[in-house]
């Protein structure tokens, strides 16, 4: 089993609903977030292109954050999901520095926090909160090992890219372009 997500940049409008839904679902304190929106503009008026990306932890196959964690708080959980055991974390921030995606933040209580793909929901057969709420239905989640999962179907016939492929992290977020 390998959980992954696809984000359709042709449909995303950058509304930030994924960010708010994550905050209310996971009780993320105000001023912090586990997912966020990036807007990229290219070209000169009027020959322009614009891409919105809903970004979060890439749950990398080759995850530098897990490798550099001195206490083992950062670890790989079910379906390849990268997790942090809050009570094992000393807040040293090595993982934050090692992440090429800036996907982790220091929780005001001192530990490091990040996206969990809403594993607590997924284990009950629900979708991650961001996927469940997205008004444009541009987020697809599922098991890459299952050819009929939403995410497998989403990337099957579309062009996609991953972020910072040069980092060699084998990220599991696929941006449909």
């Amino acid at each position: 089993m390998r959980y992954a997500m696809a984000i359709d940049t042709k449909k995303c409008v950058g509304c930030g609903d994924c960010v708010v839904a994550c905050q209310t679902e996971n009780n993320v304190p105000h001023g912090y977030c586990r997912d966020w929106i990036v807007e990229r503009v290219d070209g000169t008026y009027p020959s322009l292109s614009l891409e919105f990306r809903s970004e979060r932890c890439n749950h990398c196959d080759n995850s530098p954050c897990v490798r550099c964690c001195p206490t083992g708080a950062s670890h790989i959980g079910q379906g390849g999901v990268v997790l942090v055991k809050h009570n094992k974390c000393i807040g040293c921030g090595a993982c934050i520095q090692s992440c090429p995606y800036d996907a982790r933040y220091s929780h005001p209580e001192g530990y490091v926090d990040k996206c969990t793909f809403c594993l607590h929901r997924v284990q009950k057969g629900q979708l991650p909160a961001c996927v469940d709420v997205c008004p444009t239905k541009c987020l697809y989640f599922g098991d890459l090992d299952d050819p009929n999962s939403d995410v497998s179907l989403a990337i099957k016939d579309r062009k996609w890219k991953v972020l910072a492929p040069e980092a060699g992290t084998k990220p599991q977020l696929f941006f449909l372009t």
Partner: protein
Amino acid sequence: MKTRRDFIKISTAGAGAAAISVKAFGSKGFGFFEPKTEGPVSDEDLTPYPTYCEVCFWKCAAWAYVDKNGKIRKVLGNKNDPHCNGRLCPRGTGGVGMVYDEDRLKTPLIRDTRKDGSQYFREASWDEALDLVAAKMKEVKEKHGPEAFGLFNHGTPGGQFHHLLRAYGSESNAEPAFANCRGPRSSAYFSTFGAYVGSPECTDIRDTKCLVLIGSHLGENMHNSQVQEMSDAIDKGATIITVDPRFSTAAAHSSHWLPIKPATDIALLMAWIHVLVYEGLYDKDYVEQYTFGLDYLKDHVKHMTPEWAYGITTIEPEEIRKTARAMAGAAPAVVIHPGRHVVWYGDDTQRGRAMAILTALLGSWGKRGGFYFPEGVSVPHYPHPHFPEPKWTWKDWNDGKYPLATMGITTELLKASIPRYNYKHQVKAWLVAGTNLPLSMPDKPLFKEAADAVEFIAVMDTMPMDITGYADVVFPEATYLERYDVLRASPNREPNIALRMPAIEPKYDSKPGWWIAKQLGERLGLHEFFNYNDYAEVIDWQLKQLGTSLEEMKKVGIKKFPRKSGPLYLGEGEAFDFNTTTGKIELYSVDFADYGFDAIPNYTKHPEPPQDFYRLIYGRAPMHTFSRTSNNPNLSDLMSENSVWVNPKVADLWELKNGQEVWLKNQDGAITSFPVKVRITERIRWDSVYMVHGFGHKNKKLSRAFGKGASDTEMVTNVLVDPIMGGTGMRGNFITFLKENPEVEGKEVKA
């Protein structure tokens, strides 16, 4: 569209991303941590209560999930609701922030004067505040007649006060939603099709093959099911044509973006009509059977060629032809979107007419993928005596002007409140329910003069919005998640009703709008109009008339009913009587001709920005609604201030830097109260700037929103009034940049 992450990470072509890291090691140093914050709660441990959202007025049905401690943890869409299909937008998801905003109005407030003459608000009991407002209402009634008590209302609780004022004897009401927003569209579509497009609009985007957006910025305007359907249309490969001087989100997702010169839309629309008519691309059977005035139209648009429009709009003739043919190829499954906030240049009803005529030529009114026939549930009125007949109403302020106005015009209500305008029927006091007038209405000097002139102002709101600063009495209203309200019964494809009930008890000493209206009614001897103890009784009575009950609705939240008015679309060649003067779709408007207006739209040239000035265009951001969400802790977290979008060429000329704070000054010398950050972006034309509406709050009690960004409304002092229905066109304002604080110079600084 900035999130705080985005602020750090934003990457724009040509400019290196400014990397400012705000992150650091855990502030509490090293060591093991026992988390105190609660993690996610399992849905089974939460109790859902039905509601419909009130952050914007799309009114999506939802469930508020309450935990064992009585805290609302999250709000999720009702899967059975056609307004949201189980997915709320960011504002709906963040609606919980309205409840837990610690800056909320907490108790009734009464304006008082200190010994030194300065004024302040003192906290008061409900009885004292209600007694005071009721006494004032009685006094106005005796001195000037009940008609002299005016009402500004918006949103669901506004309706409760409309009911109160009608029982009391006044129909002197106006809401910004008409003359400051959607009014021209209502008049345009009603005069063409004998029907309104409504809210939610009856656009069949779900099944469209071609969606045409004229300045409409779906995706930034997050009216939920519309955005969802646009996304579905993208999936299905529909053609999207967006006309906008700004590279909007919708433009970025479009097959054709026409970067039109601002204020020239009617020329483009008429050229499209020309192409359809003279290339014989219009739906001949449909036009023959259902419309009136093709010959007039043909004659009228003869010279309005794409070449003619090119010189006005800067859109190439071939692009105009190509897009017109794309529409014809997709017809009748074409949505020419009627827009929503359409008060731009004062000829807005005529622009709406041009869009409606285009719709008719494509045969898409009443057709799948065009416009469907909506149907609503008729909720029976809870019994009460007949309302007294007022001696005069809002219509009398217009004094023969604006013949097609169907609702009170807010600016007329202001003028009727100012003695020097010498209106025959004058207003002496206001009730303001759920609308923040200083940020929602143009021409702030007019508002201030009117607020000064009236004897008394009572304001009801959930937040210390700027309007509360003008009040004599402030009523703290409970938020939508803490109260019952009228049943939602907006027309849709399937008729339906939705329930709003309290998920929790009102926080602080706030009260539901219905309760406040009833308490005033009782004090005015109007008990027969408020013959219930709890609004739940009214709802239950209404639901029972509809064959359901409050008990059932509490379990389902939304209930659908079978259609009674027939199918969603016209049958092939089906006879149909339109509710217009001719009984047909009027390409030529008989009523307009009678009133002396153009029966077919004409393009009028509008003034251009003077040297060193730029046209101010404003709009929405997807996470905010009007000025009401800027202080919401969840939503201000996503976007805490607006910026002024400036084209890089303009920025070069002015030597502006990204993020630099500037003050804006308009053609009339008005200056923004606060500076606003410059956002240099290719997404805006060089002759215009763009701002998201709703920022620049002046009330210090809004701890997150005070002084954040600037108010576009302050820059709108030139109002272009639509002679047909009184709409207040706001896009004829031009701004320039002030790089130094305009207040510093020549101002004495107190030691």
